[in-house]
């Protein structure tokens, strides 16, 4: 079973990396790039779970405890495929 969880900075939290990338993009002539926010993406391989709901619950728990830092980040379970 495969799953994807994404973790992003909360909206008003400073993202120096995103800022720097936006800067670099401008410098390279990509003026259309107005804003960049950098987040994380986790691809997980799981033992086959009884069902998707069980897997989703596990992933949420895991994201909250381990993958995301709830003080500054939000997470989302993106997809689960068996």
């Amino acid at each position, binding site marked *: 079973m495969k799953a994807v969880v994404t973790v992003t900075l*909360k*909206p*008003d*939290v*400073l*993202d*120096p990396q995103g*800022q*720097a990338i936006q*800067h670099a993009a401008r410098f390279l002539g990509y003026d259309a790039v107005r804003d960049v926010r950098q987040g994380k993406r986790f691809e997980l391989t799981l033992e086959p779970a009884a069902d998707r709901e069980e897997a989703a619950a596990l992933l949420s728990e895991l994201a909250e405890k381990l993958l995301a*830092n709830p*003080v*500054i980040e939000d997470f989302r379970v993106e997809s689960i495929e068996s």
Partner: protein
Amino acid sequence: MTSAGDPPVDLALALEHGLTEEEWHQIVRILGREPSFPELGIFAVMWSEHCSYKSSKKHLKTLASEGEPVLHGPGENAGVVAIGDGLAVAFKIESHNHPSYIEPRQGAATGVGGILRDIFTMGARPLASLDSLRFGPLEDPKHRHLLAGVVEGIGSYGNSVGVATVGGETQFHECYRGNILVNAFNLGVVETDRIFLASAAGLDNPVIYAGAKTGRDGIHGASMASAEFDDSSEEKRPTVQVGDPFTEKCLIEACLELMQTDAVVGIQDMGAAGLTCSSFEMASNAGTGIEMDLDRVPQRAEGMTPYELLLSESQERMLLVAKAGREQEVCDIFARWDLDAAVVGRVTGDGRMRVRCHGETVVDIPVDPVAASSPELDRPTAEPPELRERQKLDLAALAPEEDLTGALEALLDSPDGGSKAWLYRQYDQLVQGNTLIGPGGDAALVRIKREDGSVTDKAVAMAVDCNPRWCVLDPYAGAVAAVAEAARNVACTGARPLALTNCLNFGNPEKPEIMWQFVEAVRGLGDAARALGTPVVSGNVSFYNETDGRPIHPTPVVGMVGLLEPWSRFAVAHFREEGRQVVLLGETREELGASAWLALRRGLEAGAPPAVDLEAEVALQRLLARGVAEGWIETAHDVSTGGLALALAECCFSDPGGTRVGAQLELADPIRPDALLFGESPGRVVAAGAHADELLAAAAEEGVPARRLGTTGGDRLCIGRAGGSTWIDVPVARLHELWARAIPRRLEAA
């Protein structure tokens, strides 16, 4: 003066902002009207404990802050002390305890960022950092996480900005389970005729904002109840600021470049309470006023209100006043480093802070009552009722240690006694190429170069110290001991202690027992600083370190700075060679009160901490300087927590990876072996070198008790009674293994 969207301002809102009813009435009296919402925010922040020092002011005034080399004492961003030949060092220590508990990585990182700004604001190039850390027990996964995060944060920030982290201290204790301590120290070098102050002088001079854009970071820092904002915005208002070391690095270089011109009148970093605090302080220092237009402030988020713009704690920002007509030159230098800079206002002569936004005046308050004449409290104090009882320790009734070797091994294997290499290996200890002694010794020793890169023969030694177990059992004695130990650590390199900074970490000052601890500690700090001739030139107070009514142990951390000149001779804390003679300087008394041995082997935190003899301390430190300069002392290691046995074991290994040298030693003092080996009588140093006779003679001259212990060599550490039984006889490699693994093994267990 109210803007659309601001909540109605009344007493209730003031209380929610942490102001008292009395303070509310005072504000109304000062203004002759009720404050606007941003004005209320300003008063709340400026009069908060954090910014106004209202509980501590009265006591801090008693500290000795003057002395011949002191150029700037408390009140400036950092203390500045002359080191001769037109050079000075600026240094300070500051706490970032609360943010680090909430988000260890960013909290610690922004702590480092903040202290660095305090230093380069004064025109000094940051040279070296220390960090003083305290956590709960490592058995608690939360504290393993906090330790890892804090160390990563300190490293990631310090390493990126190119400032070496050369030392610190780390302790673990139950009392920090709910409140960790993260105190960051930095020292910078400045030419005495290029020191800058936070002053908004000169009518009509432009006020310039430089650095990162302002976002909604840390507005809760103003202790605002979030319900008063619109409900949906709660999510958008993170209390945690994220550090951007890259911007800070550019800011350091740009500011130092700018300071080489004569365009700058005054400069101040935006720390706690951001734009508000920095502008009020600058105007107050100069006896002027400031007129500011918030529309010109570089902004990161959209639709920020005046309240938010004034109180945001976004990092990596500076406020400066330039000479009129030099605006462009200033902005050009920031532009070269790709930093935002904007003229946001001008200096006025009427002593008022006037702030406009969208053409409307949103703040109009007299500077002085907010800044300089903020409230001062005289809080009640009371000695904790059970303290006298806890100070009693009947040695005769205390079962003697049966396994002396086992006790030494247990101390080496404890998180407090073990090597801290796991932490400091994550710090760049070398950048700038001046580190003569990095972490692992008693004090760090860093060579001074001039801004043009030329080497001087000066080096500064620095150390941070505090033993909270002593402080809780006797805050006065504990504070005296912290000063003495920090000075002794500095002296062990051969340097002469010059001046100190301090970070006073305590519980809730509204409790008389906490306030008593604080007052006692300040008294001790002052007495010891006076006796050792090391003025207190800067510092920081952190109150309210308590959770669920359980306060931390009083933790007055002392950061001592000394000068070694020339640095061509210095001593290290480990044995360098075989065949050296080992001498113990200072007197060992039969005492075990407040010792690490007592806590670890008997589970007791009790007894009176050993008293420091400050006169003897001065003599000892003079002897160390002389002995190192003469070449008699090549190793000097302070005997502190864990006692003589632990100190001797540490002398056998230089860490990491360095030499291991054993020793055969005999002790003659007629006291019980456990007190001899593990007692913590202060004022002692293990010295080694090739000229013990000269050292002993000099000790006699200086009136320092001294005795020969034996010689270095072999691969075992043997300690026994002179002419009697052997107490400890272990391979150094075994001791080293325990010591080196003490922290890593606890982290890996997870």
